């Protein structure tokens, strides 16, 4: 069969065929590029389990779809906040630390500040915005799961289409394509004065502020991209060898964070990336090894919203998921009953009180707790992506760990190279990832820009 990558969730079906083809090519290029990179790693020559489905060999028809799930609320926030109440506040903070931990500003070529603050702590491929009425009461929360790189692509092909989408979602009729693109090169500024390019002049600026309110349409955190999902799945498919008691052994996948530290496939402090990586790695460690690819359409999806945790005001009728959930983009039943969630490919979900109920969302409670923020509802959202798996003719390729991790009192895992020592106040999180004979050298903090490029002094 001929494999074609579709748009996420099969949305925008009315796009011209040449645009759809261009999207297919874009995903294909990411997959092939990354497979080529890992193909160059020193290995035992075994099979790379992630299969490019567009290659001549193709994929068999007999494939088993497997959903890979994770919680939508940011794990890192839950872990680092001093208490659960503060975690709800922290999760909704806007800022720039997704670009770099010490980012202080975004400026244009003239040095003028440009407001590019985003939901910089919502890093589980789920972002949300709350909507309040004139009395300040919570009336709706909108969740999105659509990578900004898809919207950048759409903008590149049809800027007016994207502008119209924002006009519709925000109710602001004045929005034009000019409002959505970078009018000059945009640079992130770090605390030490260094700057790095984040958006080129004339390109779609995924951090524009029309996407930072109730008109939210797509993800904006720097790491919440489809490209990241693809890289993660591919990087996690190789067997990882560690030296234990003088023997090379295959790292088991029982601790997703340890695996992520080893493979460096994604962000180790998230829920999502380690779980996705571990799912891919299961193809390596299963008793019957598998081959796999990301199911078409490649995307990150809202799986379910646990409406059962929502209580209407006393004396009101019980609610169903259909009463409170509107799937505004993508497909699926937004409930958590049965297997329905396994089919969900929801990209935009709006939660509000039942129509005509006589009360607003903010008058409901989550369990016994008054509902005051979108973050409380985010704790009820599960995410998923899909992989297709089928039997492999042989064992997976094995390579060495390319990373390790340190950890300190703050409980944040700090990725380092296996030969680097941990900094002051940090200890080795997983000593077994270190080569036994290596002489550690002090680690230096990384400065990363979009797509993992190193920021340069300008």
């Amino acid at each position: 069969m001929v494999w074609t990558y579709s748009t996420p969730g099969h949305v925008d079906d009315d796009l011209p065929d040449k645009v759809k083809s261009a999207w297919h090519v874009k995903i294909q290029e990411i997959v092939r590029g990354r497979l080529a990179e890992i193909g160059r790693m020193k290995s035992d020559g075994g099979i790379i389990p992630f299969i490019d489905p567009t290659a001549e060999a193709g994929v068999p028809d007999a494939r088993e779809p497997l959903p890979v799930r994770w919680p939508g609320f940011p794990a890192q926030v839950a872990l680092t906040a001093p208490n659960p109440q503060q975690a709800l506040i922290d999760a909704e903070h806007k800022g720039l630390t997704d670009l770099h931990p010490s980012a202080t500003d975004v400026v244009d070529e003239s040095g003028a500040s440009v407001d590019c603050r985003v939901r910089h702590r919502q890093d589980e491929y789920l972002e949300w915005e709350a909507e309040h009425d004139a009395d300040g009461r919570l009336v709706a929360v909108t969740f999105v799961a659509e990578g900004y790189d898809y919207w950048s692509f759409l903008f590149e092909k049809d800027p007016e289409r994207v502008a119209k989408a924002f006009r519709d979602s925000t109710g602001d009729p004045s929005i034009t394509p000019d409002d959505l693109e970078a009018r000059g090169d945009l640079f992130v500024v770090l605390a030490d004065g260094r700057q790095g390019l984040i958006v080129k002049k004339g390109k779609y600026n995924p951090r524009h502020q029309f996407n930072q309110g109730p008109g939210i349409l797509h993800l904006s955190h720097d790491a919440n991209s489809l490209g990241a999902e693809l890289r993660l799945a591919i990087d996690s498919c190789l067997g990882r060898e560690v030296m234990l008691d003088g023997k090379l052994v295959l790292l088991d996948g029982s601790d997703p964070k340890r695996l992520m530290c080893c493979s460096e496939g994604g962000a180790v402090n998230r829920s999502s990336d380690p779980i996705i990586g571990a799912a891919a790695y299961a193809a390596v460690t299963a008793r019957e090894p598998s081959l796999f690819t990301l199911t078409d359409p490649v995307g990150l999806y809202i799986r379910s919203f646990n409406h059962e945790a929502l209580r209407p005001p006393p004396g009101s009728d019980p609610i169903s998921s259909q009463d409170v959930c509107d799937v505004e983009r993508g497909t699926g039943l937004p409930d958590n009953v049965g297997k329905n969630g396994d089919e969900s490919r929801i990209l935009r979900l709006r939660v509000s009180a039942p129509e005509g109920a006589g009360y607003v969302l903010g008058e409901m409670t989550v369990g016994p707790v008054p509902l005051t923020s979108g973050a409380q509802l985010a704790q009820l959202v599960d995410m998923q992506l899909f992989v297709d798996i089928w039997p492999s003719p042989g064992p997976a390729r094995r390579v060495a760990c390319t990373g390790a991790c340190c950890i300190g009192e703050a409980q944040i895992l700090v990725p380092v190279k296996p030969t680097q020592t941990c900094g002051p106040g940090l200890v080795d999180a997983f000593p077994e990832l270190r080569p036994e004979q290596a002489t550690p050298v002090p680690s230096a903090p990384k400065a990363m820009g979009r797509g993992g490029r190193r920021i340069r002094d300008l």
Partner: protein
Amino acid sequence: MTTILPGEPELEVDDIQAHVLIGFGSTEQAIGAFTGDDLPALGAVLADWAARGRFRSARDLMPRKGLNARRFLAGADIRHDRTSGPWLAAAVSKRLLAACGVPHQFDDLWFSAESMLEVPELGDRLPAGGGQLGDDWEVGNGERPVDVLLVVGAARASAADEILDWFLAAAGPTAREVYREELLPIEGSLEHFGFRDGISQPGVLGLVGGEPFEAFRQEDATTFPEGLPGQDLIWPGEFLFGYPSQGPVPRVRAPIRRLADADTDAIARNGSYLVFRRLLQNVAAFRAFCDAKAAEIRHLHPEADGDWLATRFVGRTTAGGPLVSEPGAPFDPDASNDFRFDGDPMTSGCPLAAHIRKVNPRRGPSDQQINPRIIRRGAPFGRQHEPGEMAPPGRGRGLVFLSYQRSIDQQFNTVIVRWMNDPSNPSGGGHDMLMGQPGRGESRHFTVPGEPDDTEVVAGPSEAWVHTTGGAFLFAPSISTLTRLGNPTEAR
């Protein structure tokens, strides 16, 4: 050489109640709940009894760790020392703490609920004969609130009962006993459905006199600290106030989770939240359901009978052997309980919604990676079911569920409400058919894995075999805090 992890704290075992850290095991027990118009009077009795050393500390019962509690107690009663019976533990309501004038700004909204009936998420069912939720509760409803819960372990239940009598007498005429039950162990550590219970308790990290509290530790468990084979060792802050808690790397301690109110934080130290639930078990209904459904699916699973299906619901054989083990292999909970679900991304022979996989996903790749743990101290009540029985005993039979945790919301709620009662969590595959409560008027379903296709087993809304008849969210204070309940100024 025993590995001690960096930063392992000394456990203040003289101050921590034995029931939290060690438990009363297979002793005969009595449990009683009390309230009254004069709550400070109840607090004063607890304080007086604590001052007299009547509550057993974890240090008192350290010698019984790893031993059969019943046999140990028999020997201890002859020695007549701090290990002798009766063993007594107490937990109190937030209302009582407030009435006694001690700080009570706790951070858990479940503990703040006036009654467990306020929490519909638990999925508890309405009375079979009609009426409001809680009308058929024996304890924990509006008429029978719980302000003090006492658990007593003794060689004989009658001896444990006596302690409850003494407490009531000491509390004076304004005190009221709202509930009492004898908890009698079933031979083989079984619960009423016939399965071995109490397996896979987490171990607790921490030291006593510089030595590990849990005497057995696996030497090669570098990533996941393990005590007995397969027993996760968990940082004590998951169960007790005032200790380091579990972080993303199991062997590295996370900071102590403190309460925002420093005064409450001080009195909470060495204490733990206690969840108490009285669960009625209808054994005949459970077995009839298993038999009937097994017959329905036998054309797909020729080996299916009622016992076969019941073991799928549980994930273990009746003797306790996990389904992932070799069939027929002998099972020793202290030696052969080391199994994970990480060998196979789907089921490892154990259904995704099996009870043991629901409450403890064991790091399988298709399971959630967050694994909140609780310490269970429950015990069965009511006499054992016998084939052909005409009617259950008067007050029924079932399980008094007791769990200790540092956060009711993040631990009990996650395991019981978000996982057991939810068909899609933590890994999908349906409901926990054994103990799950899906809510009123809803069906439950369970996926039995098989080739070429999985099979779905469905229980209708009226097909239920576990029914809640009581419960409360409580706090089990340290012994020093119990002492201060009679003298609130010291408690500050």
